[in-house]
């Protein structure tokens, strides 16, 4: 079989050399025979005559040999494909149109699938990634889905669980590091010593931490990342044992992390966490576990709950450990958006296929006569269908090829829309085997989908005696028209679903962008500075440093106001519990809400653009007197405890056995601290002097473009301390726009595809209506000849098209409503009962569709009856 194939393939692709071989072989035989006869004593001419008599003609001999090579199924197939390729190339308009539509559909799907693949499907870059889970605790009482993990709990779980091969926790951290040159702010991790077992990694150099080094007050040791080793130490192995100062504290380097390590975050250094399981106050750790083989995430959760609930204290009853996959934890929120967009792109591909199917049907119709003749001459159903399938396969292959290019380009475009640090380092969007597989599946299914229609028709034609029918050039058969009309209706319906969804999303995004953030976005610069405890041990030093920085900043030209704050809007959460003096004890079972706690310098409200609802802002130096501390609360806080009465003059304290009461001097209007689409929590703002913090963000309100002050600000910090890096420098505008990037990105993508769907659907409608007109030329000609008004003809054509669109819209409206309902269940800000959106989309589609009908209608009205009748 294999020999045979090789032989035939050679015959197929090197037919010239095969022919030459044959010629030479047979010629040799003839000449040799002549020679032989001459040797037997014949004269040359006589020898030639005898030889020819015996041998016959060369051509005859060749033909016999060619017969042996024969025609096999793959040669037939090859011919079939070559034939259909030629026929497609003869109609470049049709072919290019189809390829273009398919490329759009397939390319869009591939691009979006790659994003989905990168976010949700690709295995993590780690050994046996399916065993890794994230462990966290939930506190339903405080409405906290994730409290982060307390070290005591972690220690307890680690000691007693039966589900995990290894378990480790970590805390993301940052540190100022001064190598040679400008000081750097490096990302790092504090990890427990068992992290390497969880990740199953080996150090590139040196060693990991020992359990003894992972204890309070142990020797300070660190691992550095491969990148830092390369860039700062020239990959020199003598780095082991050297010192490194992280935030001014000396650490001894004991190892280098593996170069391809991206988990749990891409960190530039690791230090031991060094916690002791004594306190149950701080919930700040992230935890990873590696499940034992055969263990499931659900069983592991049960195991953890069993351990957790056996601790007899209140906290253990209020919190619930749970495990979840890393992807799920990181992108869980994005999954619904991604699925919406994928569904939208899928619809575009479907429309493209429907369009192509329509075009193929039209082509099948125009070749009906030929098909009928061939059927009459004995071509089998399979033979007739095969041609159409070959064409479909060509088109699908070309469409897929173009689609892959388009998809890769689109993917790059989408990736460029994603902010740099928005995704973890382990996410990669590169095309992999799933991409290849999907390309193949899409190409194959679309080929089947639009190839099947004409193929079925062609084979049916073989059964019926269409020869007689087509001889009279009758109009398109009813079945044909029905299937075309069905396709158009489906197209319009699909397009309307996509348009309605896109408009809903667009409107939600627009509404969101109109939400007042409650803080100033424009002309506001923010950056963060962190004071290392080694040089800045005392809280007074912190206050002095930041006061000096604010003073200097205020003297810069173009600065309207400046202040510092521990947390600026859209930059995260730091929570605490508060007591309210004289407040009725909360009903049993209801715990205090978590309160956002901010420490800020006087003037922060003005610098950040927050507004006072009542009372006053801090005065300069406020908070210095410990016996008379003041505090600001936000409206949510005020509403929670005093409902409608004013909280001014009331006292609150951080939850403690010995409360330190603080006077409320002002109420700040709620601002969108967590994002424009997120609810605000109760918040308190403490004066910096009363609650100093070593890390603060500087917020500067400028008269013009805030980024022009970036260099001057860095210079100010350098003047105060040349070892301090400035980090997270950005504008509030940038931060606000970044907070919406997911919504914006998918709204744009879906909008783009909805536009494509509209164009494709209209193109499909145009094609079908023109084609119907072409088929009815004879009938129209007769009617014109009988005195029908051209306007009436045109009106009828338009009317027919409009009916199709109306049917599509009716179907689409129902489907759109369900689509909008499912959108509303996934996203906020969508009202599926918004009638106007349906009406607007319907009107738009109808209008565009009518415009698409006008051209064929005009053509119908201008037909010349005489020439039509003559051509009969």
């Amino acid at each position, binding site marked *: 079989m294999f020999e*045979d194939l090789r032989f035939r393939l050679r015959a197929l692709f090197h037919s010239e050399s095969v022919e030459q071989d044959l010629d030479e*072989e047979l010629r040799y035989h003839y*000449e*040799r025979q002549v020679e032989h006869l001459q040797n037997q004593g014949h004269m040359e001419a006589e020898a030639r005559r005898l030889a020819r008599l015996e041998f*016959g003609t060369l051509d005859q001999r060749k033909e*016999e040999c060619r017969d042996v090579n024969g025609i096999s199924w793959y040669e037939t197939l090859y011919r079939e494909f070559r034939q259909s390729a030629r026929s497609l190339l003869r109609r470049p308009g049709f072919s290019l149109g189809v390829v273009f539509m398919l490329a759009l559909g397939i390319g869009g799907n591939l691009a979006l699938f790659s994003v989905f693949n990168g976010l949700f499907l690709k295995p993590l870059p780690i050994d046996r990634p399916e065993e890794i889970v994230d462990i966290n605790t939930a506190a339903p009482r405080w409405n906290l889905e994730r409290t982060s993990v307390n070290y005591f709990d972690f220690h307890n779980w680690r000691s007693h669980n039966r589900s995990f091969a290894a378990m480790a926790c970590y805390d993301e951290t940052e540190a100022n590091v001064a190598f040679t040159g400008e000081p750097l702010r490096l990302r790092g991790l504090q990890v427990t010593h068992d992290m390497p077992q969880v990740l199953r990694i080996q150090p590139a150099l040196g060693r990991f931490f020992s359990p003894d080094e992972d204890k309070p007050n142990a020797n300070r040791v660190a691992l550095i990342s491969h990148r830092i080793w390369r860039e700062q130490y020239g990959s020199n192995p003598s780095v082991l044992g050297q010192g490194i100062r992280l935030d001014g504290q000396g650490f001894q380097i004991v190892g280098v992390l593996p170069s391809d390590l991206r988990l749990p975050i891409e960190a530039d250094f690791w230090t031991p966490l060094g916690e002791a399981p004594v306190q149950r106050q701080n919930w700040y750790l992230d935890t990873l576990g590696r499940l034992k083989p055969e263990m499931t995430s659900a069983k592991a959760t049960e195991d953890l709950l069993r351990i957790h609930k056996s601790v007899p204290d209140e906290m253990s009853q209020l919190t619930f450990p749970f495990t979840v996959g890393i992807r799920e934890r990181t992108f869980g929120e994005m999954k619904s958006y991604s699925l919406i967009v994928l569904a939208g792109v899928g619809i575009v591909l479907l429309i493209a296929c429907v369009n192509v199917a329509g075009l193929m049907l039209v082509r099948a119709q125009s070749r009906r006569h030929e098909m009928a003749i061939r059927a009459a001459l004995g071509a089998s159903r399979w033979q007739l269908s095969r041609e159409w399938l070959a064409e479909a396969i060509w088109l699908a292959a070309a469409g897929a090829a173009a689609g892959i290019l388009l998809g890769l380009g689109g993917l790059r475009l989408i990736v460029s829309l994603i902010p740099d640090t928005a995704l973890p380092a382990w996410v990669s969007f590169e095309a992999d085997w799933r991409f290849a597989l999907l390309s193949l599946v899409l190409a194959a299914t679309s080929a089947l989908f639009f190839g099947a229609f004409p193929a079925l028709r062609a084979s049916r034609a073989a059964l019926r005696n269409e020869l007689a029918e087509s001889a009279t050039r009758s109009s398109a058969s009813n079945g044909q028209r029905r299937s075309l009309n069905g396709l158009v209706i489906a197209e319009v319906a699909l397009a309307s679903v996509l348009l309605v969804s896109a408009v809903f999303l667009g409107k939600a995004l627009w509404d969101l962008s109109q939400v007042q953030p409650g803080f100033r976005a424009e002309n506001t610069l923010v950056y963060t500075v962190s004071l290392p405890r080694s040089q800045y041990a005392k809280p007074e030093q912190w206050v002095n440093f930041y006061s000096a920085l604010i003073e200097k900043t205020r003297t810069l030209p173009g600065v309207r106001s400046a202040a510092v704050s521990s947390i600026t809007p859209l930059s995260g959460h730091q929570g605490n519990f508060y007591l309210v003096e004289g407040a009725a004890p909360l009903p049993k079972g209801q715990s205090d809400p978590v309160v956002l706690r901010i420490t800020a310098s006087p003037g922060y409200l003005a610098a950040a653009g927050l507004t006072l609802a009542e009372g006053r802002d801090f005065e300069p130096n406020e908070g210095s007197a410990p016996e008379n501390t003041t505090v600001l609360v936000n409206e949510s806080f005020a509403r929670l405890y005093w409902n409608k009465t004013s909280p001014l003059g009331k006292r609150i304290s951080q939850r403690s056995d010995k409360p330190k009461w603080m006077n409320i001097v002002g109420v700040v209007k709620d601002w969108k601290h967590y994002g424009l689409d997120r609810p605000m929590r109760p918040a308190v703002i403490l004066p910096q002097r009363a609650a100093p913090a070593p890390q603060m963000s500087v917020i500067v309100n400028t008269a013009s473009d805030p980024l022009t002050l970036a260099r001057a600000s860095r210079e100010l910090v350098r003047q105060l301390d040349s070892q301090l890096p400035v980090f997270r420098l950005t504008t509030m505008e940038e931060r606000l726009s970044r907070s919406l990037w997911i919504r914006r990105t998918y709204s744009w993508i879906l909008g783009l595809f909805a536009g494509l769907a509209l164009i494709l659907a209209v193109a499909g409608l145009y094609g079908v209506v023109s084609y119907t007109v072409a088929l009815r030329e004879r009938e129209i000609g007769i009617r014109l000849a009988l005195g029908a008004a051209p306007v009436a003809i045109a009106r009828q054509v338009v009317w027919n098209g409009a009916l199709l669109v109306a049917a599509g819209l009716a179907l689409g409206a129902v489907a759109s409503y369900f689509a909008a309902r499912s959108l509303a269940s996934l996203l906020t800000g969508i009202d599926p009962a918004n009638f106007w959106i349906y009406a607007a989309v319907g009107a738009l589609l109808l209008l565009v569709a009518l415009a698409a009908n006008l051209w064929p209608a005009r053509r119908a009205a201008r037909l010349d009856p005489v020439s039509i009748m003559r051509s009969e």
Partner: protein
Amino acid sequence: MPNPLELPQGVLDLLLLKTLALEPLHGWAISQRIQTRTTGDVQVQQGSLYPALHRLERKGWLKTEWAISENNRRAKYYSLTPAGRKQLRAEEAEWLRLALAVSQVLGEV
């Protein structure tokens, strides 16, 4: 000399394989060889020699190679492949069995 024998179906293949079992030959030499070996009783028809060779090549029993022939010209040489050798053994055995069986029957009469 009596008329050359008509070869039954399949026998030509056997003769070709057998002839090539000794050494690679080109088409003309093959037909000469068969003719001499059978003292002229079997004359390979020109119309069937090359198609048969090509068919055997296609089946993977023969392989070909261009080489310089005894009269210093380029000629296409056929030789047996291992598969061809196996086939030859099988066909040979079968033919002998058949021949024996046939002659037994004929002898009885």
